[in-house]
């Protein structure tokens, strides 16, 4: 599979049953997706992250790429000494083998259909119509393999008037209603956290669809199509925004660092110019905060004991908390809040995260040794399964590192044929 060190990045020290805990036996004999072959024909992250999760839990993932340039994600993000791999590629193309194949050439398409015949899942994220233009529509794919499960992710989905528009997560955040909400009221809307959030969301829905479809296939013997628009995945995150507009005509606006549901619920600056988050979702939480502030009277029914009253007096309550937090260093605020069990947390930068003992204890940062690059640290597997924890066994592969193996062993091509295909740049 790979000459890299096998790492079990999800230790479960409390779980003696799990064979995966043992250093000597870092991987259970069987993972949930052992024996499942996934073809990842996508680019960047929307869709491919689904392949990553499936790969973490045992599936074999073949990344099919154009022979010349490969996935553009190889060039997106911070470059490394490896000319075909940025850091994004190394982390997010984890657990894959790379197979080059030119689908603009008829012979490439024929080989691809043979590969589909040997696979369980196909993931792609071209603009709708691209696969069909190559002669790889659903009729051709399902003729090659009636059991195929086909995840299609695109900016706007496979149907509807905008289906042909180009879509990235950034556009989907805007179109799906998330970007409008990020920033201060009346001011410039900012990027909500990270650039590819919507790519992860849409991939997660896609992976869920694939697992559902696998169950259905076990019973019926038939595959099916999963159609995800990135914007839909973003929109689905927005709790009751649709219901409250539908019922009350309320248009939610940007809320700065706060929230419409609760007060105090936001980000506050500490005396040493750092930031903490406080979330008093319920009255009980506010009572605890008032105790931490040594002002229990604030939580009386006459003052701000009820969420309704705090929402009505949002500015005054936030001002009181802002002043208290601003009068103390971050560590002091945190400790006082934690003593009283107030929901509180540091706004961690990545430097904070690397120092954090909890991230260490949970194995959230996994280190792999990459030839020529040394140690590369990437986020570990989530979620953690007690019997069959997932694993990161290799980082983003070199372009075409498994082309020969797949053509020879999986498709049974002769060495001469493979040589000829290479010369014609079909593979």
């Amino acid at each position: 599979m790979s000459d890299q060190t096998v790492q079990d990045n999800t230790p479960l020290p409390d779980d003696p049953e799990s064979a995966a805990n043992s250093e000597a036996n870092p991987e259970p004999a069987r993972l949930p997706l052992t024996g499942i072959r996934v073809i990842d024909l996508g680019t960047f992250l929307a869709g491919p992250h689904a392949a990553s999760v499936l790969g973490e839990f045992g599936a074999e993932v073949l990344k099919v790429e154009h022979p010349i340039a490969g996935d553009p994600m190889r060039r997106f993000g911070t470059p490394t000494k490896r000319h075909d791999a940025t850091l994004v590629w190394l982390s997010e193309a984890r657990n894959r083998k790379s197979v080059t194949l030119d689908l603009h050439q008829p012979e490439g398409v024929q080989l691809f259909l043979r590969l589909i015949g040997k696979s369980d899942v196909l993931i792609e994220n071209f603009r709708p119509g691209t696969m069909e233009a190559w002669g790889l529509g659903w009729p051709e794919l399902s003729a090659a393999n009636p059991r195929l499960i086909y995840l299609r992710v695109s900016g706007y989905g496979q149907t509807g008037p905008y289906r042909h528009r180009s879509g990235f997560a950034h556009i989907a955040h805007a179109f799906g209603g998330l970007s409008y909400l990020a920033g201060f009221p009346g001011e410039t809307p900012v990027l909500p956290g990270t650039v590819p959030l919507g790519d992860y969301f849409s991939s997660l829905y896609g992976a869920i669809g694939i697992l559902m479809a696998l169950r259905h296939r076990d019973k019926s013997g038939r595959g099916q199509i999963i159609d995800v628009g990135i914007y839909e995945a973003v929109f689905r995150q927005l709790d009751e925004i649709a219901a409250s507009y539908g019922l009350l005509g309320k248009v939610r606006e940007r809320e700065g660092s706060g929230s419409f549901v609760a007060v105090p619920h936001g980000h506050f600056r500490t005396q040493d110019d750092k930031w903490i988050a406080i979330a008093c979702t319920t009255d009980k939480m506010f009572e605890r905060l008032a105790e931490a502030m040594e002002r229990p009277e604030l939580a009386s029914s006459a003052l701000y004991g009820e969420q309704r009253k705090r929402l009505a007096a949002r500015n005054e309550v936030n001002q009181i908390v802002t002043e208290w937090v601003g009068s103390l260093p971050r560590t002091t605020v945190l400790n006082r809040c934690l003593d009283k069990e107030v929901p509180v947390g540091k706004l961690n930068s990545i430097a904070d995260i690397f120092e954090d003992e909890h991230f260490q204890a949970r194995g959230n940062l996994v280190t792999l040794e990459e030839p020529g690059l040394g140690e590369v640290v990437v986020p570990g597997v989530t979620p953690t399964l007690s019997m069959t924890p997932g694993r990161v066994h290799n980082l983003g592969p070199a372009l075409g590192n498994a082309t020969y193996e797949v053509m020879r062993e999986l498709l049974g091509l002769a060495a001469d044929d493979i040589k000829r295909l290479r010369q014609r740049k079909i593979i």
Partner: protein
Amino acid sequence: MSTVDETELPLAGILVIDVATVIAAPYCAGILGEFGAEVLKVEHPVGGDICRRYGTPTARGDTLAWLSEARNKKSVTIDLHRPDGVAVFKRLIEKADVLCENFRPGTLEKWGLSWETLHQINPGLIMLRVTGYGQTGPYKDRPGFARIAHAVGGIAYLSGMPKGTPVTPGSTTLGDYLTGLYGCLGVLMALRYREQTGIGQYIDAALYESVFRCTDELAPAYAMYGVVRERHGPTHNDFACPYGHFPTKDGKWIAIACATDKLFVRLAEAMGRPELASSGLYGEQKTRLENRHDVNEIVRDWCGSLTREEILQRCFATGAPAGPLNNIADIFGDRQFHARRNLVAIDEQDLGETIVVPSVIPRLSETPGKIRHLGPKLGQHTEEILEGLLGMGKEEISGLKKKRVI
């Protein structure tokens, strides 16, 4: 939503007990329910799930968030603080396939419902445990909400104007939904493993971990180069330019994302200034990143000279990646949302009003998920389940009721 026989849905015959609160673990149960599982929401007899009070109240009392996110569930009230309640709960566990919970670590154990006990009662049981910090590690006992998870997991620090106050990354519940999604993946994988081996397992999901998992190369870039990513404001991306939000002449906003050089060519064409994409000017990402301010200024001037609709039409004509920053009113008027039926209006007799909620995603061609009904009333199905599923007699049920165990 479809004509598919419910017994053909992927999770038909799966019984899910959702004893969790608010959104994260319950959202996992919600997805399972959309695709055919029967979901029993087990709630405290007084007040029930606090999600019933999270957000905007309706005439019935339960909030809109509850009505939408407790879709397809049946409500069964059981007081787990009472031994009689625990006994009833154990009988439900015998029949269940999946349990979703989000108590702080140690709570179920205190009630005599540890994983070991539950696993013994039902060796095939799959248990999703969602907490702020997970079941292990030094912070496991701290209270956690998505807001805190956004902070701890690193995305709150990244949201806002450079050096300005960090803002909510769009919505305070992102981390809940994300964790529901990862949790649901865990449950589906564990179901698959159980089918092969007969053995159940538990899934340990932490809100902050799901958030952290969505931070692309934040961790590898710090480890390799010591780069600490800061807040980006509206138009900053380390890898692509122009990339951000730009105001239009009519006081609205659009998003533009030129992730590759080809996309910038299309934008330059849309602007009627193809020369901008020449190699002498800004044809290459590297040059655009070095001249970020100039490039953004050019795009900003152009956007400011036209209405949102004009900009969008010109971008779509050349295939430049652009989109409106929709508010919810825009979304309700949008053809794509309607064509994809992303909004579904549900009228239920006992509500006396029509409620619009987001429909099911992902969309499966053979076995599409469905919304059968919105969030139930507290205890609406207690008797049905105790009688029908557990075979309890009427007397036993009324005895439990009198003691307020159910």
